[in-house]
């Protein structure tokens, strides 16, 4: 496993700047999650590191060596695609063996057999090894596809929303499994996802992309608790951060245009009166939909009596986030 670094990397697709001057360092053994909406450049960053795309500017280093001119094969990276991309004409076993048999690795057959047995056990696909790749369910295909990356010991694993197509139960299972495998191997992983739970639970570092620019890079806690902008703040948190005009509560710092309130920033019992519009019971939590001066606020009930819809409750902010007119955080 190795350290991977991007230095001022840019990539154009026609007239669109897909990746804008990104500098990013992925430490050895780190699990880095890239967040951002569709089109933010997350997948392009993966493809640039893998060599499937060539950058228009900047340099990419693996273990301190520039790989910008290398073919994907010579970069020694493994990638799990969002689409499973199993080779349909091969059996599961041959799919897993495919990277090991490549002219770069040329693994002896007995070692291939040993590695496949091990990976199949880890991913619970031992009984499917002799099936054709097309005879698997979606979850099995994705596990094989992850397995095809894990049989190797590459410089970095690149994973493009590998769990997004699975059902909730399998996703939760594989999430735990992936994290366990990653820490066991000490593997370096760059992982693209939309899923907040995946980001929060698996990542050692989170990078947030906005229109090709890396706007913040830090630990999941840092990204959640100290976002640099309104945009970053909106990436994490369920229910999403509430954004209101700053002057709606007293005490906004100078220059603040927007106040950002996560559920834990909202204290009840004193302050401004809001009307309870709706109460949602999600099982483990209860969401309150409030209305204040024509603005909707979603928060969680934290103890106390459960209010009824139509009731009025008082709220005030506690340690909220303040943003200026351009969306940058000022306090």
């Amino acid at each position, binding site marked *: 496993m190795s350290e991977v670094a991007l230095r001022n990397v840019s990539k154009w697709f026609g007239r669109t700047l897909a990746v804008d001057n990104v500098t990013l360092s992925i430490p050895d053994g780190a699990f880095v999650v890239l967040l951002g909406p569709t089109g933010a450049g997350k997948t392009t960053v993966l493809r640039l590191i893998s060599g499937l795309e060539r950058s228009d500017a900047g340099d990419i280093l693996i273990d301190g060596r520039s790989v910008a001119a290398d073919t994907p094969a010579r970069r020694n990276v493994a990638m799990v695609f969002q689409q499973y991309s199993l*080779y349909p004409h091969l059996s599961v076993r041959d799919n897993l063996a495919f990277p090991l048999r490549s002219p770069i690795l040329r693994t002896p057959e007995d070692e291939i057999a040993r590695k496949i047995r091990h990976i199949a056990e880890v991913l619970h696909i031992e009984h499917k090894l002799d099936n054709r790749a097309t005879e698997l369910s979606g979850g099995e295909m994705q596990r094989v596809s992850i397995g095809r990356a894990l049989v190797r010991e590459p410089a970095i694993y690149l994973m493009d929303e590998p769990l997004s197509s699975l059902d909730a139960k399998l996703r939760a299972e594989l999430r735990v499994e992936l994290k366990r495998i990653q820490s066991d191997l000490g593997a370096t992983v760059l992982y693209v996802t939309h899923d907040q739970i995946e980001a929060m639970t698996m990542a050692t570092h989170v990078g947030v992309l906005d229109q090709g620019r890396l706007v913040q890079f830090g630990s999941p806690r840092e990204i959640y608790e100290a976002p640099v902008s309104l945009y970053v703040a909106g990436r994490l948190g369920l229910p999403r951060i509430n954004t209101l005009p700053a002057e709606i509560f007293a005490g906004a710092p100078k220059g603040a245009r927007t106040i950002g309130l996560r559920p834990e920033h909202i204290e009840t019992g004193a302050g401004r009166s809001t009307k309870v519009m709706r109460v949602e019971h999600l099982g483990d939590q209860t969401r309150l939909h409030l209305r204040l001066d024509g603005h909707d606020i979603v928060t969680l009930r934290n103890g106390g009596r459960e209010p009824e819809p139509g009731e009025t409750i008082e709220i005030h902010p506690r340690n909220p986030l303040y943003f200026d007119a351009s969306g940058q955080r000022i306090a």
Partner: protein
Amino acid sequence: MSNSITEPTPRQKWVAGILVVGYALVTILPLIWILTTGFKTPADAIAYPPKVIFEPSLEGYVNLFTTRTRQTQEFLAAHPPQTWYEEIVRKYDMVIVGPSRYGERFLNSVIIGFGSTFLSVFLGTLAAYAFSRFKVPLKDDLLFFILSTRMMPPIAVAIPIFLMFRSLGLSDTHLGMILLYTAVNISLAVWLLKGFIDEIPREYEEAALIDGYTRFQAFYKVVLPQAATGIASTAIFCLIFAWNEYAFAALLTSGTAQTAPPFIPTIIGVGGQDWPAVAAGATVFLVPVMVFTIILRKHLLRGITFGAVRK
């Protein structure tokens, strides 16, 4: 038992079945006629009204593969027939003097037909892959140009090709005919195969590139096996064209490289109206294409390669 609305009723199945069988009979009748004529005697073959029930004879096949001459009674008496096929020709006071030219014409057809098919499919696959995957300048214009070579009947350029072949020394050569049929077939091959390769998701090659393979290895190990269906059907189309082509073969070949199609009609001129020999020649001529199609048939089953990429 009730049927789902997308499934035909038993009655509809019967009607469809009768239509299909009826149509098959109509189209297969000429073939059956040729097949049976090959086993008739020349007299039965021209009998009127036509004989449907007849005594089978191998005369047509013997005549197809041999050349014969008429001999005097003294000669025939001095040389009794040694084999069953010599026996057959004795009925007409003839003896076999050697093999006919059918064998070598047939071999020419095999060399030229399969040679040009291989070349068309080989070049066609590479070109189709390039058109499908790479940024080729003027791609659409080039593809249109390639297709435009099929917009006129090939025979329209017969005279220029005849003159070209003569000055290049390609007339009546195997190479000349292979190149010619390849030139005609390659546009079909490129277009057909491009369609098939377009349908193979790029993700497979990208996965192979990352798995440690070069682009050519990815093409060979991942794209080719999945294009097998397309390659097989393209090969069948190319072979059928090259195999059956008559006009150019008649024009450009006469001896060493003559293929079977222009040769078969000439059989009739050797020793009277020998329809059974012509029919036998046509029957034997059908065999390779049939065998080839049957061998490749299993690749024509689509669907085995679909469904491993989530769309």
